[in-house]
């Protein structure tokens, strides 16, 4: 079965320190992987996507993620957290198949301490 697991439901970091949000996926086919961010009362916004090109993907607002096939991981990182990064983050996987259902992780809430 296709699935995606976000390993931390809540991550808290101090402003200016690195951010790591972890995501693992199950692999039946070649996946497309995405990270979305959800701020309160706003729609989901795409941070970055991986679609079988470069394994290190750079996104908006200084975020990046590395696709590691051997570890079936797609962790999201940022070198220095900003207060505005506080939000809910979702790892998303889709597959190139006739059933291109889109699978969301359960989300990681990122808190930033001043």
């Amino acid at each position, binding site marked *: 079965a296709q699935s995606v697991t976000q390993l931390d439901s809540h991550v808290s970091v101090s402003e200016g320190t690195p951010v790591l949000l972890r995501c693992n996926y199950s692999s039946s086919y070649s996946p497309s992987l*995405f990270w979305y961010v959800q701020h309160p009362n706003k*729609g989901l916004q795409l941070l970055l996507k991986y679609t079988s090109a470069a394994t290190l993907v750079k996104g908006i607002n200084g975020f990046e993620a590395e696709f590691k096939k051997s570890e079936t991981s797609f962790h999201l990182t940022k070198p220095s957290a900003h207060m505005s990064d506080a939000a809910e983050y*979702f790892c998303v996987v889709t*597959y190139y198949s006739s059933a*291109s*259902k*889109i699978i969301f992780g359960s*989300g990681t809430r990122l808190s930033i301490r001043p």
Partner: protein
Amino acid sequence: DAGVTQSPTHLIKTRGQQVTLRCSPKSGHDTVSWYQQALGQGPQFIFQYYEEEERQRGNFPDRFSGHQFPNYSSELNVNALLLGDSALYLCASGGAGQGLSGANVLTFGAGSRLTVL
């Protein structure tokens, strides 16, 4: 360029009632998908419409139905509402000719928050 717009933003219904939620996709997009996001959880895929037909469906009962119109806008209908249907319902559009490719980048609306009492 307007993104995805959803209406209404909030609504309250009672058990057993029916609800219709509406979605206008981003200009140039031709696929629309719907998601249910319960409080504290990730969105769950309900179904996807392309060329006015339901193409993919998640694990939701037949009480959940939808429609896509020739202008690509879409409706989500839920009959016989249950307390457990209380959630944020998200609409997303994508495609612009890519159809149902898994690599579609989706544009999400802000959602319709449904409360069932």
